[in-house]
């Protein structure tokens, strides 16, 4: 049996691991299971390679970004909470202004567990979805970014599992094991949320996923970072620092593809595929696909759970303190568009019940911002075509709109019309086949696959030619 000090040295942390018997006992059991999962379901191949990775070793200013060559299984997955600030009070809901909880209030145990498990489940899921992408990476730079994202998703799993171990007793330990037994896309044991069961088998999907789906993560984590349950708030707050890199990978990755596609379109008189590139229509379909699956992750437009989570002080809004004045919102309403008798109409919903939509709108605004950036890229290259986000009603599997069919502009259409057109609206089998056919591993330092532009700079001040992965 390892002693606590060994465990604590192996696992960078600021949660007093060495002195916490309960946590040590749980981790001793879970750690081998985690490593087994990582070896089975983590990035395929490359486990023995040195990779230029960033490791968080403390929460101090310089501590969370230590760059060095590491073999992935040796990555030091740590447990960090943002530092404790005394006198923090609950910032929203029915307990507004009361001291934050350092332990779980019994009455909210069930809801908190559900929130944490749902968030936690997404972390290993994305690693599973992306496990084969190293073999077709467009550059060492991108390959390294993929692995960075993967190990950090792994660490985010640790962060959530820490909360389960520390605060939920036996139930928490059971849930932590379940997190390692579900599998993305598995018929019998699928991941909880649908977007995390979708195949992600090429790099256009990878960048779309890290841009759109990880961005959902950002908004979920940010709203949990507001929580009255302080350990969860601080855990999520620290996770956000890492999540930012994932979003950077997605946003710049798509931007680079868009730039290259525009260039190739210009060079080939509108037939970028003839030069092994990706046409902008296909990129639009990928945006439509991943944006809408990610919208589902916010939950139903009208939700008593969302209302309860807010009222109970468990889950706030994005930047609750800075962006909102009324933090209780007992009486407000929000206007939602609903389908009544085959028409889209508008109706007032109690604001708290519309919390999912409030967060979804913050997210959509952020996505719009990225779209504007990509369209500036198109403008720079000299193309007239513009990319856009589809309507929030289009292609939904959750919530008010999932029972109906809409076109990307949000107009109600018949099932037949949808069936007839969805191939031209959403990433489809031929697209995936084409993308797989042009994606081949590029391993010469500094070199890029032909379908993607080079990034503007390297990682941690290193040049693009740097050997980010030692093969």
């Amino acid at each position: 049996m390892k002693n606590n000090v060994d465990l604590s040295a192996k696992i960078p942390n600021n949660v007093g691991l060495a002195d916490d018997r309960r946590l040590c006992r749980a981790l001793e059991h879970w750690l081998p299971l985690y490593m087994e999962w990582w070896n089975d379901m983590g990035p395929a191949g490359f486990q023995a390679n040195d990779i230029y990775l960033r490791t968080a070793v403390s929460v101090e200013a310089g501590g969370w970004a230590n760059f060095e060559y590491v073999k992935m299984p040796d990555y030091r997955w740590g447990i960090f909470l943002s530092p404790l600030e005394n006198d923090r009070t609950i910032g929203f809901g029915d307990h507004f202004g009361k001291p934050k909880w350092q332990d779980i209030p019994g009455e909210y145990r069930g809801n908190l567990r559900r929130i944490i498990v749902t968030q936690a489940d997404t972390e290993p899921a994305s690693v599973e979805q992306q496990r084969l992408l190293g073999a077709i990476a467009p550059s060492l730079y991108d390959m390294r970014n993929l692995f960075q994202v993967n190990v950090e998703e792994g660490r985010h799993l640790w962060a959530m599992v820490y909360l389960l171990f520390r605060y939920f007793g036996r139930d928490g330990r059971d849930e932590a094991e379940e997190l390692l037994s579900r599998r993305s896309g598995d018929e019998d044991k699928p991941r909880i949320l649908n977007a995390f069961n979708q195949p992600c088998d090429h790099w256009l999907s990878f960048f779309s996923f890290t841009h759109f789906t990880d961005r959902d993560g950002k908004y979920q984590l940010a709203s949990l970072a507001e929580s009255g349950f302080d350990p969860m708030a601080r855990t999520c707050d620290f996770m956000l620092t890492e999540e930012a890199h994932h979003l950077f990978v997605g946003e710049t990755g798509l931007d680079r593809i868009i730039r290259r596609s525009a260039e190739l379109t210009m060079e080939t008189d509108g037939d970028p595929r003839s030069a092994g590139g990706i046409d902008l229509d296909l990129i639009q379909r990928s945006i439509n696909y991943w944006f809408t699956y990610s919208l589902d992750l916010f939950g139903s437009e009208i939700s008593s759970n969302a209302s309860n989570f807010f009222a109970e002080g468990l889950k706030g809004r994005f930047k609750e303190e800075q962006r909102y004045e009324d933090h209780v919102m007992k009486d407000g309403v929000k206007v939602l568009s609903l389908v009544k008798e085959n028409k889209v109409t508008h109706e007032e919903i109690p604001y708290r019940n519309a919390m999912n939509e409030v967060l979804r709108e913050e997210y959509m605004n952020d996505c719009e911002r990225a779209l504007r950036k990509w369209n500036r890229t198109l403008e720079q290259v000299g193309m007239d075509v513009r990319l856009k986000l589809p309507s929030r009603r289009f292609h939904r599997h959750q919530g008010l709109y999932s029972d109906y069919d809409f076109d990307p502009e949000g107009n109600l259409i018949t099932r037949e019309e949808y069936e007839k057109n969805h191939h031209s609206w959403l990433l489809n089998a031929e697209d995936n086949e084409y993308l797989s056919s042009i994606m081949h591993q590029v391993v010469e330092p500094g070199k890029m696959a032909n379908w993607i532009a080079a990034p503007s700079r390297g990682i941690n001040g290193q040049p693009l030619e740097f050997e980010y992965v030692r093969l």
Partner: protein
Amino acid sequence: MAEVENKETPKTITFSAHPSSYRHWRLEFDGAICTAYMDVDPDHPLKEGYDLKMNSYDLGVDIELADMVRRLRFEHPEVKTLIVASGHAQVFCAGANIGMLGLSTHAWKVNFCKFTNETRCELEDVAEQTGLKTICAVTGPCAGGGYELALACDEIWLIDDGNSAVSLPETPLLGVLPGTGGLTRLVDKRKVRRDRADVFCTVAEGVKGKRAVQWRLVDHIVARSKFWEELNAHAQQRASEVPDRGVERGIEWLPVEPTLEGNTVRYSTLRVEYHPEDRTANLTIEVPSAATCPKDAAAMQAEGCEFWPLRMARELEHAILDLRINHSLTGLTLVRTEGKLDDILAWDQALLDARGHWFADQVIHLMNHVLQRVERTSCSFFALIEEGSCFGGSLLDLALVADRVYMLDADGVEIARNEFNDGLLPMTTGITRTECRLLGEEELAKSLVGNYERLDAIAADDAGLVTESMDDIDFEDTVRIQVEERGSLSPDSLTGMEANLRFAGPETMKSKIFGRLSAWQNWIFIRPNATGPQGALTLYGKPERPQFEWSRV
């Protein structure tokens, strides 16, 4: 003082349904196996103001279920295994619709729960009485009333996908009870340990996977990829264990169609006259000559729904449901029969002789079911045995259901017991109505078993079967005074009083469900912690959180 609610439900609810027009269920027949898919149409609730999302149900959904259960009894004797499944992609069933409960009056909630309880009990009865095996296929979350439906099946199969769970979230989420048999079936039927049941009933998200099996909340868990294959194989296996009843088809199940003439609801075998002025009703069963009685079971089956005892049982049931839901102001029903004692005894005898034939057996079971339903109705019943009455055998048990029995002491006014009174029509509590009356007179009760002599008023009084026997000078006036007195008493008190006095003697799981669980539920339904302005049921789905009065009452 709060406004007294003296209005009847404006919209008349009919209890008839037909598979061709089901909105919420879909039946598939494959030889000896019937699969019933619950696939609730959200846009067609029974009343306005709520959507039936996530396979949640209201009375309209349950009326179809009741129809289906009844058809399994009579239309589909060839079915040996029933699979209750969900036609919804994401959930099995979210339970009773909360929006509907929030909008309903107390009386509606009580009647809704009573009807759903009776349907679940009949599902169990059909299984017990026909050998039908019932399996619930839980795919997706199965909450509250959904799990209560599952509990009414012989076996529960749960898909093991890490998401599907069974739960009774009424206490943690709504501040009410799993009152449609949930609590009772958990500990009495499935024999879940009571401390585990306590944990289970307070965890809103419920229990899934291995623990659900360990705690006996479900019987099997199966991975998604193998679920239907294994379940179907098991259903076939179960069906093969059921002895063949030698019948390929049942009878055609036709609707009951009464006509309305002023305040009289007229059926082919009985009539109900409503007297709103004194809040009473006269229910009179008309017994025809037994000369038209089919000679054997095959001939009875050939008559199908037209067979008089079946028709009468069905029409009586319809009348009772109509009384409950559409005539709630009626506080006292006077039960009479018209015909010859010889005839009702001859009808009974024909059925007794045909026992062992599936159709005759099911008619007797249905008669029993209907009498139990009368017994559970929140209305006073007085049986009046007068000149021209024919309270014999099966109809005598209807008199014994009544809270009081008044018998005219006159020549030719007689009653008679037969085998129906000695165990063929047990009460919910499992004993006969004769035994229930004579709990303190065991010797007398024993002496009546097998004693099928005709009894005049004096003999009936001596036998303890009537409340009072009176000659014609006293009879009319005494009855009138008793009726008027009854009409002056608190209806709530009478409901409670009758429910307690009617079921003297032992308890069964079913009697506990109706007598205890329902009573607690109905109490909680009017408590501020559930239905007050700050109550949990009132505020469910709304932005405010409930605020409880913490005193234990």
